[in-house]
C-alpha cells in the first residue's frame, strides 16, 4: 500500500500516467463530442490544415483528425489485447516452469525459445496471410499476443524460480498445497507488481508491432491504425509532396503513447525495486 502511495508521489509516474490518460481521452472520449468520420470524403487529397479540418485531409480526402483519432483507438485496442494475451500466457507458463523446474521447465523453455528463434514478425505475417480473415484488427492483435508472450514468460520465469526457494513457499509445500495452489497463493501475489510492469511493456510492444506490420502494408484491412496512416502517407507520397500533416501527427502520437508507457514502467520499477528507489 505504501508503495502505491509512493507511486503517486513519483513525478515520473504522474507524467507517464498523465500523458497516457490524455491519449486515452483523445481516443475514447473525444469521439463522444466530435464527429469522427473516416469514410466521407470532405475534399481533395492532402488539403493543408484549415479551420474546418485542423489537420487537413489524407490521400483519400478524408479529415485527417478523424483518421488520427480512429487510428489511435485501434492502435490502443491492439496494444491492450495483445498485451493482455501475452502477459497472461507468459505469466502462467513462466511461473509454472519457474516453479516446477526440471524437465517441464526445460520443455517450456524450449517452447519459449522456439518463438524467440523464429522471428515473430515473420510468423505474424505468415499466420495473418494464411487466413482469409487473417488481416482483421482482432486477429492481428491475437497473433501479436501469441508471438510476444515468450518474452514475458522468460522474464516471469526468472522471478518465479527465485521465489521457489523462499521459506513461505517451502512451508506451503510441506503443508501439502497443490502446485496450482502454491503458484496461485504463494507465488503470483509476490509477482503482481512485476507482472503489471510486464503488461505495460507488452502493451507498448503490441502497439509498436502492429505499427510495424502496418508499415509494411500488411496491416488490418478493416480499420484505420496509426501504422496504416504512416504507410499510406509514405505510399501515396505525402513525404515527397511535403504534406507533413499526413504523417507527423501520427508519428508523434505513437511516440507519445509508447513514451508514456515506458515512463510509467520505469517509475514503477523505481518504486518496486528498492535498490533503485533512492
Amino acid at each position, binding site marked *: 500500500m505504501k508503495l502505491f502511495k509512493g507511486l503517486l508521489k513519483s513525478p515520473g509516474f504522474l507524467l507517464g500516467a498523465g500523458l497516457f490518460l490524455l491519449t486515452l481521452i483523445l481516443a475514447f472520449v473525444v469521439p463522444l463530442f466530435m464527429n469522427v468520420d473516416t469514410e466521407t470524403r470532405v475534399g481533395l487529397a*492532402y488539403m493543408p490544415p484549415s479551420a474546418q479540418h485542423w489537420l487537413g485531409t489524407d*490521400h*483519400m480526402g478524408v479529415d485527417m483528425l478523424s483518421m488520427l483519432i480512429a487510428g489511435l483507438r485501434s492502435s490502443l485496442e491492439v496494444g491492450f489485447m495483445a498485451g493482455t494475451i501475452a502477459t497472461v500466457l507468459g505469466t502462467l507458463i513462466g511461473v509454472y516452469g519457474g516453479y516446477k523446474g526440471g524437465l517441464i521447465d526445460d520443455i517450456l523453455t524450449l517452447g519459449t525459445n522456439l518463438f524467440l528463434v523464429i522471428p515473430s514478425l515473420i510468423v505474424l505475417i505468415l499466420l495473418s496471410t494464411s487466413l482469409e480473415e487473417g488481416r482483421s484488427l482482432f486477429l492481428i492483435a491475437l497473433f501479436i499476443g501469441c508471438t510476444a508472450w515468450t518474452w514475458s514468460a522468460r522474464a516471469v520465469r526468472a522471478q518465479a524460480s527465485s521465489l521457489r526457494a523462499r521459506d513461505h513457499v517451502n512451508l506451503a509445500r510441506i503443508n501439502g498445497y497443490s502446485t496450482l495452489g502454491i503458484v496461485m497463493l504463494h507465488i503470483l501475489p509476490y509477482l503482481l507488481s512485476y507482472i503489471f510492469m510486464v503488461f505495460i511493456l507488452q502493451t507498448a510492444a503490441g502497439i509498436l508491432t502492429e505499427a510495424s506490420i502496418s508499415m509494411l*502494408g*500488411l496491416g488490418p484491412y478493416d480499420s484505420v491504425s496509426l501504422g496504416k496512416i504512416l504507410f499510406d502517407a509514405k505510399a501515396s*507520397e505525402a513525404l*515527397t509532396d511535403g504534406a507533413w500533416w499526413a504523417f507527423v501527427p501520427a508519428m508523434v502520437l505513437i511516440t507519445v503513447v509508447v513514451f508514456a508507457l515506458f515512463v510509467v514502467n520505469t517509475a514503477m520499477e523505481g518504486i518496486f525495486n528498492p535498490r533503485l528507489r533512492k
Partner: protein
Amino acid sequence: MIRFPAVRAATLALLTLGLSDCRPNKSDTSSGFPRNETVYVGGRQWGEPNSFNPLLGWQGWPVNAMNLIYETLFLYNPDSGVMEPLLGESYEVKDDSVEVTLQEKAHFSDGKPVTGYDVKYTFELGKTYKSVPVASFWSYITAVNLPEEGTLPPGKFPRKVVFVLDPKHKNPLVVLDQLQNQRILPKHVIEPLIAQSNNDINTFNNLKFDKDPIGSGPYRLHSFSSEKIATVRDDNYWGNDVFFKGKKAAAKYVVHPIYKGNEHFSVALQQGRLDASSTFVPRIWLKQKKGVHAWFEKEPYFPQSVIPMLIVNVEHKPLDDAQMRRAIAFAINYADIRELAVSGYSEPLQSGMILPFGLESKYFNAEDVKTHGASVYDPERAKATLKAAGYQPVYDEDGKLIETRDAQGKRLPTIFIKSPAGWTDWEQIVKIAVRSMRAAGIDARERFVDASVFWTAQNNGDFDLLMNTPSSEPSPSKPWSRFEFVLNSSDYAPEGEKMFKNFGRFNNPKAKGYEPRIDALLRLIPQLKADEEKAKAYRELNVLYMKLQPTIPLVYRPDQFYQFSDRVWKGFPNSERPFLPPQIPGDRLGTRILWHITPAG
C-alpha cells in the same frame, strides 16, 4: 563526430563481403556511368533480376521490356494504329495468312544477319515447348513457312515469312498482336544451347544469359546487381543506318535502377536521378516545377487506353442478376475514383467497353451509351433499380447498413471485392467502390489479399468482385481483345477449375440464358475488314455488354504511365511534340526516343 569511424568501418566490412554482389562485365572496367552519357529509366523492373533468358516468361528488364536487346518484327503505335517496321520491313494480311517481309540489313550483335530461319525458329519453339510464352500463339496458326526456301542462291537467306492462319480459329488480329510482341531470337545461339540441355526446356531455362546475350537490339547487357541493371550502346547497331541516317543513339548507357516502391522512383525523378519512368506518380502537377513532366501538361496528363474494372463472378448470388450488376454500376461514384484514386489522370467514364476517344472512338456510339449505359454515378437510379428487382437494404437505428435482402426477404451474402494487398491505387479504388455501394444499400466489403492468393482466386473464380485490367498491353487488336478477355466463354470451366480469361464465368454455354451471339461476334470481328462492318459489330457487342453488365468498368488508365524529367536530357516527346507515343526509353517504340534526346544545358 564519433560515428564516422563507425560508418567507414562498416562500409568497408560491408564491401569486403558485398562485392559478390556486383558482376560488372569483365570487358568493361569503368566503375561508374557518367551522368551526361546515361539515361536512367524506371518502372519496368521490381526486385532483383533473376535471368535474361529470352524464353522465360518473366525475365528481368530489359528483356521483358522489348527492343533494347531483343527486337520484335514490328512496333505498334497506339496513337496512329500503324505497325511501324523494325526487324520486319512490311506485312500483308491475306485471307488465310499473314505475310511478313524482313529487313535486309538487320543483324545480331555478333554480326550474323537476322533471317527468316531465325523468325521461323523463334515461333516454332512454341510448337515444340508448351511452357514458352509463344506457345499460346499456335492455337491460331498452323504453320510458319519460308516460301523462298530452296529457291535462293547461296549466300542469300529467306526474307519472306508466311504465318498460316488456323481455319478453325481464324484471327489475323491475334497474329498482328504476336508480330509486335514476339522478340526474334538468334537461332544459331539458341539451338545449340537447347541441344546442350538435351532438348529439355527446363534445363535450358536455368541458363541466365547474363553474360552479354546476343540480340539484334541497339544496346547490350553491361552489368547488373540487385540495385540496378545497366545496358551499354552497341555502336554498330544495324538500325542506325536503316532508321536514323547512320546516327547513333544519344546515350551510351541505359540504366534501370531497382527501387523498393513507387515513391522512390518519384523522388528520384524529382531529384534528377531518374530521366523517365512508367510508375504511377500521384499529383504530378506538384512535381512539374521540379522538372517532372507527363504527356500532357494538364489534366488528364496521360492518354488512356485501358479500363480497370470489377470482374463479376456471375455465378455468385446476388451477382447472377443483371439488375444487381447494373445497380452496382449506377451506385459507384466514378468522380471520386477519378479524382482521388488516380489523381484525375482519366477522362470521365463512359458506359461500355469502347473508349470514347483515340482510335477506338470510331466504334463508339453515344446514343447506345445513353440508352443502355449504367456506368454513370446516380445513387437514386441505383436504389430504384434495386427496388425494382425486389432487393431491400436494412439499416440500423443510426442509419448504418446492416444487410441487403432479396425479394423473399432472405439475407443476401455480403459481396466481397478482392484486390491484391499493397497495390495502393487499386486499394483506394476498391474502398471508394465499397463506400458508394453501401451508400446505395448494397452490402459490400473490401477484401485485400496477398498477390499469391489473389491470382489463384482469380483463375479459380473464387471471388464475388475482383479488380482486374483486361488486355493491359498496347496492341492492334483493341478493343476486340478487351471484349474477348472479358466475354469469351468458349473455354468455360466451373468455379474451382482454372480459367485464364473471363474469370467471371460469364455466358456459360451449358447454362440457360446463354447468349450465343456474343461468342459469334467475338469470332467474327477479327475477320472483318471494312470499318463500317466492324463498327456495326462492335456496336452490337457493346450494347449486349451494357445490357448484361458482366463487369463494372471503373476508370480509364494509360497502359503504362509516362513521366520524364528534362533536367539532364531534353527532347522527350509529349503532346506538343508527339513524334513518338508515350512509352519510356527501352520499352517498345519508346526505345527510339534515345535517338531524339540531347543533353540539356
